[in-house]
């Protein structure tokens, strides 16, 4: 049983990771990050169930809270960038470099 959940978790994580790496739209990249976070959550919950204690579930809640905070800040940044640069592409926001 556990294996299936973990495989699903790994798949979701991989899909999220690939999305972060290849997509250009900042919103999509952001969603992929959420996907990765939730893949982790799934793994935590799975292990909590397997070991029969609540530690994993507790961590999952923490992750959700952090993710929510991150969404608030991240989206605000993305909106600001879009307003000033008329683009939500992460490749266009490349001024901070060597």
């Amino acid at each position, binding site marked *: 049983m556990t294996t299936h959940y973990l495989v699903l978790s790994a798949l979701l994580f991989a899909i999220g*990771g690939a999305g*972060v*790496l*290849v997509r250009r739209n900042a919103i999509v*990249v952001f969603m992929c990050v959420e996907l990765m976070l939730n893949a982790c959550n799934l793994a935590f919950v799975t292990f909590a169930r397997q070991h029969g204690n609540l530690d994993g579930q507790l961590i999952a809640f923490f992750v959700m809270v952090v993710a929510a905070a991150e969404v608030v800040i991240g989206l605000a940044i993305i909106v600001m960038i879009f307003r000033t640069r008329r683009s939500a592409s*992460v*490749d266009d*926001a*490349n*001024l*901070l*470099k*060597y």
Partner: protein
Amino acid sequence: MQSPVEIVQHSGGVIGVSWLMIALPLLGAAILLLGGRRTDRWGHFLGVAMSLAAFVVAVVSFVEILGLPESERRRGIELYQFIPGIADMGLLIDPLSISFALLITGVGSLIHIYSVGYMSHDPDRRRFFAYLNLFVAAMLLLVLADNYVALFVGWEGVGLASYLLIGFWQFKPTAAAAAKKAFIVNRVGDFGLLIAIFTVWTTFGSVAFGDLSGATVSEAIGSGGASQGTITAIGLLLLLGACGKSAQLPLQSWLLDAMEGPTPVSALIHAATMVTAGVYLVVRSGAFFEAAPTAQLVVTIVGVATLLAGAIIGCAKDDIKKGLAGSTMSQIGYMMLGAGLGPVGYAFAIAHLITHGFFKANMFLGAGSVMHAMNDEVDMRRYGGLFSVMKVTAVTFIIGYLAIIGFPLLSGYFTKDGIIETAMEHNQILGWLAVVGAGITGFYMSRMIFMTFFGKKRWADDAHPHESPSVMTVPLVILSIGSIFLGAFLILDNRFMKFLAPAVGAPEELPAFHFVSTAGLATLALVAVGAAFAWFRYGAAEVPRVAPRGSFLTTFARRDLYGDALNETLFMRPGQWLARIAVFVDNRGIDGLVNGLAATIGGTSGRLRRVQTGYVRSYALSILFGAAVVVGALLYVGNM
């Protein structure tokens, strides 16, 4: 052989506050230097007042010394702890130091007064008086100190004052260079003096004059506490110090250039007082020299060599001040010769020093008066016939001239003759060389007189010579009176030798002054020949306005006997090469290493920063890669 007496601790009286002699001029210098332009209006009066006040203290101290019995005439005064365990700051008021103090403050005050007139057009007159006061204070510390360390403080102080005053007109590049030269050449001598003081300290465990009597030295040699070689080394090192300060061979080269300073400075520092500090040092250190005959012999040789060299240089100079500077070198050579002859010579050396202080200051100030009248012209070939226009200056100058060539019954006659006769008894060769020197003195001083005051007028077109104001001529008159009578007063009846005896010792049998003696007659004859030759060349004959080329020997003398050339080849050029090599090693070697390292790091980081592309995905990829590596590493470690 009479030895110096023990030093008695003194309290009360004016001698008890004799530190005022040093403190007052020092206070004057401080007020004038710190007060700045606010003190411009009355600064010179303060300078004169401080110098005169020091003179008054010196005179009263002198009277108090005279009132004491001979065996108690060396008075020590404790002031404060200077360097704990090594030297206390204390003064030694004895016949030797009080003679110097009287000369320094007396002649110094006259020169201060003269300077009020001489420097009246200079916008920096206040600074000039500040430095003069500083000099007087430092010079008094030098002669009044009761130990070598305090003496050294004064020694450096006069070096500093001399530097500041030679370079007083620092906007003239020649003056700035001359000041530096004087300072650097003096450093060589100071180095010798320092090592001598160190050696005295390690050998005897004390640097106080009171602990270093002749008895102590001979006892140390007898008990094996000090080898004969050490004492000789101390003597030679002290002599090196004396050579630097007193412009004796081989450290003579700075004195002629030092004439770039204002003329009162040349009179006070580079003729009457500071340059005689070397003679003072040798006489004050008599205990070492009397125990080291080799060192004494070297002192006399240096003295004779310098008295001849200075006289020869004096013959060829057309610059009146440089001529006088050569003469100063030569006369100090006589003093050194006297100082190298032991207790018999000391009194004559110091007596000559004092009379020389008078007649040479007199002539320097006279030269300043002439320059003042001739728009600062110093070339004697542009003088001539000045006797009729400036009678006071001319008469006082001629009195100084007669005194220096040893005209019978004037000051120089007694004091110089004393040195020559003592040298003659000591060593015939040295004696006869000193006689020859006196003959050359007769020539170059007569040349100076004929070229300046007699003959045809060779003035520049815009020159309108006039007599100087009385603030300048009165000091000349006072100094010339000293030049006439002082020698007879000091030498006859051995007055000065008896007075100095408690401080420096005296021979068992006091020498009698012979008005007629072989050496004396020979000297007079040679001086007469020299003067006649000068009359023949410069009095009767026309003096060309431009210096003729002259023979090889003339060039030799004009170029200061190639002293500068010698210094340049031996020290300056190798020094410059050393500096160039050091610069090369620094630029290419050390800088190359440091700069190369920095360039390597800079280049590497330049390449590394290309990693920062600004693309989020490449950062994300590197994070992923990093995470994969960490996970891999954890797995690997976990499986081990």
